[in-house]
């Protein structure tokens, strides 16, 4: 791109004239079966949207119960064993049934084919299958819950889980095992699609960053998840037959379990955050009408995070009696893996520079993400630092850290993405004012909930405590108050997004004037996505191309 043509004017379209296309993927077919047997990636995305939201609120309800119980120092709302089941369910559901499949399942499914100019993912049947597998895993998790719950904590720590608990550990382990396959299938599908289905002209470096992020996350899913599967199989077998591969009394080593579990579960945290980072890239670029600052750096940092993410798992075991020398190595690698995230944050910040910024709701969520993820990530560096981790590990500091990255990062990105692509998915706009209110509410509520937990953690309050010494009450009350606000913040989008399905303003094909291919077709898109396979004849995030294009024509073929 030459410097002469450095400026772009892209004006937002006049939405009052926008119309819904006559036929699109939603009204193409009717009836429940047409949804349950669909192979259309867009419909499957909606299936994911419903189920993921469902599980989020179940997980959220458990969060509410946790916070209620922690309002007072004594275990007076529920007994300790019930509390233990609460946080186990909360963790399992939020991680495996909500955050891991959320952005890939909903936004990835919907957008990957659209963004690369394909008619569908490479394996549509597999895609549907992966939703069913996910639902099977989810159902089994709920079964474990209904049958009486599990209280292992989401980490299934042995030998506790294998020999000392009499709750439904095997059911839960199998549920997660099954859910893992859904993740694997999604990952395979995405990788093949991104390699094989790109439209003519869509080179790797013309791909939107959303795709790079999903590509990296898919690599993690494909390489990491099977190890979790092995681990859970071994746990189930050990529990079933009373053998001791993880039990020191019988010659096994519980640390081997930790190694295997975290070999998956550390990369899993990047499975959760990378797709979110992809969302942020798209939204920031669009809302500041400017190409991403340092596209290549952002793209490669995704891959770097995925790669290095595999080398740091031992930082979850620093005080568990691992060798100090290998702890040294893993701590160093942890420091290295933090750097690509920093690169991304600064590149996004500098994308704003000299842009032409508007502050729609998705953008507000992005700002929330940047602030909160920075805090969450930097506190991760506390934990990666060997000596510091001794004091902080297994305390509320860790809880605060991962909620900052997962809720402040992952969930905020998910909401940003849902709002951003809502017009594309449904053809209608969400109501702007109230959604801004929701964004601000969640931000405030979030900080009120989790900032006190950092202090609690440094004071030494261990996590997974149903009861705690009274001097910690004040901070806990603050946190519960925050959670209430947060809960409201999350209820709001539920309500107004549903409302908007009927009453929202018609969006038109490209309400944000974004450059992605998905915005060049009707909203909601037709079942075939593209009447003709597009040709990518311009750079990604090319707002000049868009300006020229919009000058010439108003609507695209639908």
């Amino acid at each position, binding site marked *: 791109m030459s410097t002469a043509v450095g400026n772009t004017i892209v004006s937002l379209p006049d939405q009052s004239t926008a119309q819904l296309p006559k036929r699109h993927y939603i009204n193409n077919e009717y009836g429940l079966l047409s949804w349950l047997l669909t192979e259309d990636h867009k419909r499957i995305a909606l299936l994911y949207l419903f189920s993921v939201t469902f599980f989020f609120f179940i997980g959220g309800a458990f969060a509410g119960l946790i916070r209620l119980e922690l309002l007072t120092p004594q275990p007076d709302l529920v007994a300790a064993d019930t509390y233990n089941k609460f946080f186990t369910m909360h963790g399992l559901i939020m991680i495996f049934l909500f955050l891991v499949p959320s952005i890939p399942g909903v936004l990835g499914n919907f957008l990957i084919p659209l963004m690369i100019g394909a008619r569908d993912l490479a394996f549509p049947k597999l895609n549907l299958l992966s939703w069913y597998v996910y639902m099977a895993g989810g159902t089994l998790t709920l079964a474990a819950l209904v049958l009486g719950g599990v209280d292992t904590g989401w980490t299934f720590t042995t030998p506790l889980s294998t020999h000392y608990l009499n709750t439904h550990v095997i059911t839960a382990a199998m549920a997660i095992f099954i859910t893992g396959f859904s993740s694997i299938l999604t990952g395979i599908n995405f990788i093949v699609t991104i390699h094989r289905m790109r*439209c003519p*002209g869509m080179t790797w470096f013309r791909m939107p960053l959303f795709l790079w992020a999903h590509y990296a996350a898919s690599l993690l899913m494909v390489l990491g998840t099977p190890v979790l599967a092995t681990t859970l199989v071994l746990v189930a077998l050990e529990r079933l037959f009373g053998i001791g591969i993880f039990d020191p009394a019988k010659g096994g080593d519980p640390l081997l379990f930790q190694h295997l579990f975290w070999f998956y579960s550390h990369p899993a945290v990047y499975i959760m955050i990378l797709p979110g980072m992809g969302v942020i890239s798209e939204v920031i670029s669009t809302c500041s009408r400017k190409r991403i600052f340092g596209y290549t750096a952002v793209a490669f940092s995704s891959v770097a995070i995925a790669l290095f993410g*595999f080398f740091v798992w*031992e930082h979850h075991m620093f005080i568990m009696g691992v060798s100090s020398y290998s702890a040294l190595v893993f701590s160093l690698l942890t420091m290295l893996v933090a750097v690509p995230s920093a690169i991304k944050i600064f590149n996004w910040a500098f994308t704003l520079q000299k842009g032409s910024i508007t502050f729609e709701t998705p953008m507000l969520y992005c700002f929330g993400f940047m602030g909160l993820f920075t805090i969450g990530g930097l506190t991760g560096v506390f934990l990666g630092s060997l000596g510091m981790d001794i004091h902080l590990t297994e305390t509320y500091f860790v809880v605060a850290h991962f909620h900052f990255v997962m809720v402040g990062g992952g969930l905020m990105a998910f909401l940003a993405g849902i709002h951003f692509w809502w017009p594309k998915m449904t053809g209608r706009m969400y109501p702007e004012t109230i959604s801004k209110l929701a964004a601000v509410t969640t931000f405030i509520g979030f900080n009120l909930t989790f900032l006190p937990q950092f202090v609690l953690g440094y004071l030494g309050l261990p996590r997974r405590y149903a009861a705690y010494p009274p001097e910690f009450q004040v901070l806990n009350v603050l946190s519960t108050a925050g959670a209430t606000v947060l809960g409201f913040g999350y209820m709001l989008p539920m309500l107004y997004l549903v409302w908007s399905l009927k009453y929202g303003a018609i969006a038109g094909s490209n309400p944000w004037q974004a450059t992605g291919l998905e915005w060049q077709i009707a909203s909601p898109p037709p079942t075939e996505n593209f009447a003709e396979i597009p040709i990518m004849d311009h750079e990604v995030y090319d707002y000049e191309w868009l300006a020229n294009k919009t000058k010439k024509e108003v609507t695209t073929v639908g």
Partner: protein
Amino acid sequence: MTDQATHAHVNDLEHAEHRIVTPLQYFFVYIAMLALTALTCAAAFIDLKWANAVIAVGIACTQAAIGALFFMHAAFQSRLIKLTIGAGVFMFLVMVTMTMSDYISRSWGMW
């Protein structure tokens, strides 16, 4: 200016010509596999101290390589597929070596 030939798909990295392996070639591979099996079995009955394990694993790796290259056609696949296999082996090795780095350097007194 849009040139159909600058199709994103033309780089060789991702594609390979389809090649059909003849039954005779398969047969040679088959014999080699059987021979290696016999060899590894025989080697196990000779006391070679630590080398026994190395030989066993070495032969298994050779067999696996032959199997992957010819039976599974990896030899005639695109670089992409080769890379995929490499990635699997690499990650496996990372898992093993990094986990073992903990066990080996732990002064547990068992090693």
